[in-house]
C-alpha cells in the first residue's frame, strides 16, 4: 500500500466524518467546518489516488489548489450568511434544525 493510497483512505474517512457532521450538527459554524472536512477528504482522495503508484502527479495537485480556493470562497460566503442569520434571528442554526434559540450555542 503506497503512501498515496493511505492518503486516499484517510480522505475517505474524512469524507465520512465531514458528511456526518454536515448532516447532523445543527450549529452552523460546525456545519461549515464539517463541509471543509468533507472537502479536504475529497482533495486527499484526488491527490492520493493520483499518486498511488509513488510518482508525483502535478495535475491533481493543481486541481486541488483550484479546489481549495473554491472551497475558501464557498466557506467565506457561508460564514457571511451564517453571520447575517445570527444578526437577523439571533440564532446560529437553520430553523429546521431544532427549535432552541439563542446565539449562545456555539
Amino acid at each position: 500500500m503506497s503512501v498515496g493510497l493511505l492518503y486516499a483512505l484517510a480522505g475517505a474517512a474524512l469524507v465520512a466524518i465531514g458528511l456526518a457532521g454536515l448532516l447532523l450538527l445543527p450549529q452552523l459554524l460546525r456545519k461549515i467546518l464539517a463541509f471543509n472536512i468533507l472537502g479536504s477528504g475529497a482533495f486527499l482522495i484526488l491527490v492520493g489516488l493520483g499518486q498511488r503508484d509513488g510518482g508525483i502527479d502535478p495535475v491533481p495537485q493543481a486541481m486541488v489548489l483550484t479546489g481549495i480556493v473554491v472551497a475558501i470562497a464557498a466557506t467565506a460566503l457561508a460564514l457571511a450568511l451564517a453571520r447575517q442569520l445570527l444578526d437577523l434571528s439571533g440564532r446560529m442554526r437553520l430553523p429546521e434544525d431544532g427549535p432552541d434559540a439563542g446565539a449562545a450555542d456555539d
Partner: protein
Amino acid sequence: MTDFLDPLPWLIMLPLAWGTLAFVLGPGRGGRLAIAAIALQGLLVLQLAGQLLAGGARVHAVGGWGAPLGIDLLADGLAAVMLLLAQAVALPLAIYARGYFAAQPKGRELFWPMTGYLLAALNALFLSADLFNIYVTLELLGLAAVGLVAIAGGQAPVTAALRYLLATLLGSGAWLLGVALIYGSYGSVSLAILAPLVGADAPLAATLAAALMLAGLLLKTALFPFHFWLPPAHGGAPAPVSALLSALVIKATFYLVLRLWLELFAPLTTVAAAQLLGILGAAAILWGSALALAQTRLKMLVAYSTVAQVGYLFLLFPLATLVPPDAAESAVQGGVMQAVAHGLAKAAMFAAAGSMIVATGRDDIGRLGGVGAHLPLTLFSFGLAGVTLMGLPPSGGFSAKWLLLRAALETGQWWWVAVMIAGGLLTAAYVFKVLRRAFLPVASGDRVTRVPRTLEFSAFALALAAILLGLFGAPLLALLAVGGAA
C-alpha cells in the same frame, strides 16, 4: 480572424467580463451593459447553432493543448440547445430586472455582477467536456445562485440561501469525490477520453463515482425528495432571481445528469436505476403539484411548480434507457424539450408573478383581485406560461409531453402515461387557482398599481417564446440531433 470570432470562448468570457465590469462600475450599475452583452451572446449562440447545423459538433481545445492534458470545450447539439435556452431566458429577464429593480430597489446593488457570473457559469458548464472543469463551473454557478438568493437580505432569504448553499456544496462535494475516483481509475477527467474507457466491466470506483455524481446532481436539481431547499430559495428571492434560478440553474445540473447518463455512464445504466429516477420524477410531479396547490403565497406556488416540473424531466430516463432507439430518441427529445419549455415558461411565470406582487404590494394569492383588470398582459403571460406547464397545445410543454407520451406508449410503459396526465391536470389546478383569483375584482381596501411596461412585455416575450416553441420545435430538435448526444 475567424478564430477570433469563434463563439465558444466568447460565450464564456463575455459574461465574465461584463459581470466584472458591472462590479467595477458600482452598485446597481451595469444593467444596460448586461442587456447589450446578453444580446450579443444570443447572437453568438445563434451563430454557433448555425455552425453546428452546417458542420456538426465542434470542439475547442482551450490553450491549444487538447484533452487529456488541456481542457476541451465541446459544443454539440445538446449543449447548443441549452446555450440557446440560457441566452433566450436571460435577455428578457435582464430587461425585466432593470424595470423590476427600478420599482423594487431592494437587492439591486450587486445583481448584475452576480448575474454575469451566473451566465458565465452556465455557458461554461454547458460547453465543458472536462469533469473537473465542470466541478469549477458548478461551484461558480452554485455560489452565484446562492448569492442571488440572499441578495435582497432579510431573514427568510438568508436562511434559504444558507440552506441552498449547504445543499449545493454537498452536491458539488459528491461530484468532486466522483471526479477523484474517476481520475484514480482512468487517469483522466476528459469526457472524450473517458467515454471509450468506461465499459460495463467498470471497476467499483467508477460505479461508485457514477452513484455519487448522479446523487449529487439530483440534490442540486432538487428532484424529490431532495427538493427541500428549492421552494424557500426560489420563492424568497426577488422575482428576476427566482426566474433565473428556476429556469436555468436547475437545468444545468439536469443537463449534466443527462450527459452522464447518456454518454459517460451509459454502459453502467440499468433499467432498475432508470425506473428509480422515473419513480422519483413521478413522485416529484405529484408531491410538488399537491404542495403548489396548498400554497397561499404566489411565488411559493410557482416554486413548488418547479419541483413538480423537474419531475417531468426525469421521466425521460426510464423511457430512454435500454429501449428501442426510436423510443429512446423520442424520450430524450421530449426531456430536452421539457427542459427548454419549462425554462422559458417558468421564467415567464416568475416574472409575471413578480409584476403581480409589485402591483398588489403583497405576495398573497388570495389578494390578487384586480390583477386581471389592471395587468392584463401580465396575467395573460402567466396564463400562457401555465399552458406550457400544463402541457396544453400548442406549446413547448405540449411538444415535450407528446414526445414523452409517444415514447411511453411505444415502450409499453403506460404507468408513466398516467403520471403525465395526472401531472398535467394537477398543474392546471394550481395554475387556475391563481388565474381565477386574478380575474376577480379588486378587494375593498386593496389597490393595484401599474407596473412598468418593460416588466409586462418581457414576461410576455418569455411566455410567447414558450408557446412558439410548440409551433416551431422542429429546428430545435434538428439542432439537438447534432453530435449524436440524443
